[in-house]
């Protein structure tokens, strides 16, 4: 019997994968979203988290980039 799970396939670089893993770990157990860690740069997550991950990542990146005050 084949089990099918609907989900989202994420492909990213190593550090971002770690960022997502860390994000997942910081969530309460009920909100954990990573279904399968396929390899260091690929993962399979629940389908509804795409926007949340995107916004978290852009927030994180903004913290790390300097824009000349204008």
């Amino acid at each position, binding site marked *: 019997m084949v089990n099918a799970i609907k989900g989202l396939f994420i492909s990213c*670089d*190593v*550090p*971002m*994968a*770690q*960022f997502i*893993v*860390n994000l997942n770990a*910081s969530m309460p157990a009920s909100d954990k979203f990573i279904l399968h860690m396929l390899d*260091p740069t690929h993962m399979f997550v629940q389908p509804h988290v795409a926007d949340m991950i995107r916004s978290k990542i852009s927030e*994180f*990146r903004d*913290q*790390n*980039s*300097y*824009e*000349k*005050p*204008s």
Partner: protein
Amino acid sequence: MAGGDGDRARAPKRHKSSAPSRSIDETAELDYTDDVDDDVRDADREVKKRDFTKLELKPDHANRPLWACADGRIFLETFSPLYKQAYDFLIAIAEPVCRPESMHEYNLTPHSLYAAVSVGLETSTIISVMSKLSKTKLPREIIDFIHASTANYGKVKLVLKKNRYFVESPFPEVLKTLLKDDIICRARISPEDSVGAPSFTISKTAGEMASGHEDLLDGMELAAATEDKETHSFEIDPSQVENVKQRCLPNALNFPMLEEYDFRNDTVNPDLEMELKPQARPRPYQEKSLSKMFGNGRARSGIIVLPCGAGKSLVGVSAACRIKKSCLCLATNAVSVDQWAFQFKLWSTIKDEHISRFTSDNKEKFRGMAGVVVTTYNMVAFGGKRSEDSEKIIEEIRNREWGLLLMDEVHVVPAHMFRKVISITKSHCKLGLTATLVREDERITDLNFLIGPKLYEANWLDLVKGGFIANVQCAEVWCPMTKEFFAEYLKKENSKKKQVLYAMNPNKFRACEFLIRFHEQQRGDKIIVFADNLFALTSYAMKLRKPMIYGSTSHVERTRILHQFKNSSDVNTIFLSKVGDNSIDIPEANVIIQISSHAGSRRQEAQRLGRILRAKGKHQDRMAGGKEEYNAFFYSLVSTDTQEMYYSTKRQQFLIDQGYSFKVITSLPPPEELPNLKYYTLNDQLELLAQSLSARDDMIGIEHLEEDSDGKALMKARRSAGSMSAFSGSGGMVYMEYSTGKGKAGASKKPKDPSKRHYLFKKRYQ
């Protein structure tokens, strides 16, 4: 992050209010509010676009190099044939904001205009030259602004003549206004014969023209400007000078005084016999900066800004040689005191007995009536109890009247220390030298009042083109974090250790190792590696077996390491903590690798670059198209996706404003080199991670020097709080397997291959 690079390369087009953030400006509060409503302005970016269509283009605009905007911003085309003249003029009247290769941005500020007036430019000259150079008709606002800002500046001069202070002005009505003030009136010393009527002493002085601008003026204006001018003056009580000066500041009477020293007519202070040696040929920009200082045969106080390695000391020595009076030279630490004393002997004919050094361990008495004394700011400003010897010398410094007070690296010295130094020493003329007139605390404004206006600032790129300083290739090397390090970096409980984690990133280590190896072996370069983080400094240096110098390295050991680095072909790389930022003179080095740095300090970045700016090799090789177009390299290693990216970009701003561009390198080390570098295996990396995480708290932060960049702090014993276990030596990392001895540390842990063993020992193990 991908966008960041593009942003940096682009010449900034910014809203006017952005400009003063770096420039000398007293609107610190204003800047602050600007920052606050940043978001608001970002939102309506469209509105920011300004309409310049109503500016009238002159018919021959193609021949003119300037664009002047109503808001005080000026753009200069550097490819114009008039560039050189226009640059000299602009640097005198405006503050450089950003100077990339083909287009410079300047900003007119009240302070920059004050500096212009103080070097002898008059309001009418400023406006007429500007309108000649501008492509468009000068906007009304600019003309009004110049009039308003220069109306009172430079109208009054404070002149020391034969040890009497005179307030001098070409406008008698201004002097009358001043005398209405109570304090100034009381400070006045009236000549006995003319009681009552406010008569002024009238004297003639040769009218002055700042050199270089004549060719831009018509003959008629020139004739008018060089006519003799009458000056009126009254004498004031020397003890009241400070008060009078204060009354004249913009917040009171608003007639800021210029200070000048008529050293040729000073017969009271003994002359010092010193001339520049014939082989000391000041370069064109050095001449120019000196001509700004001695524009009218008198010496003006002020600041001269030249990049590191461009020969600031020759400017200082030349100034002393022109004034030919006693000179007090202040440096930041003991090492640079020695260097200054050496420079004086090198460039001038001063006799050895006329020059003396005064540092905590080198107290030379002065001999003779006049002489040069080289000392540190701390020695003069020191408030505590002194030894008997130094008390005597300091008394001598206090009592003497100095012709020139020469101050090195003025940007590092806190304002209160300046006040103290200036109040202790009586000097006729003050000259400040610096490479980077930026401070993270934006306190540069203080220098304007304490020393004087900025007299000259050189353009870095022009000096590079002229071959006077090295042509540096700047590169930012992006090192991705490894999986394990990044995972730890993200954990909340490691927030304090972030700095260690991104500094110790194995990919960064390997990039560093590769660069060192490449430059040592392929090019035979001399390399300095900078790390502010003590843990990173010691780990890198030990693993790579290179000597290092940091705060608590003794003076003897420092000298030994530096000597080896300079002279031995075996020592080609040294590791320095931030003690190396200023004033350790290492002319041999031509490569800098920066592995960790102090947050976002623009000044530190520029000072570090300055360590390799001194030009090396033959002059013609360095020119564009020569054999070695780039002969110096500045690498900044950055762990991507970390805070370091933020700081790194911020740090580069100063250099970018000087026209440097940073190349981003993403593929270091090259894949085929990987197995030859350290930390190749995951196990090694994990071990490194464990070490980094267990580093003691006092090791992971930025090194704190007690008195920043001062020689004294580095030599005396230090007192610090710490845990009992740390003092007794049982702190975490002590049990790790490497000895603290430098160089031989980190020796191989694997048993040696018996075939390589020395034959004496071979027997023993057989």
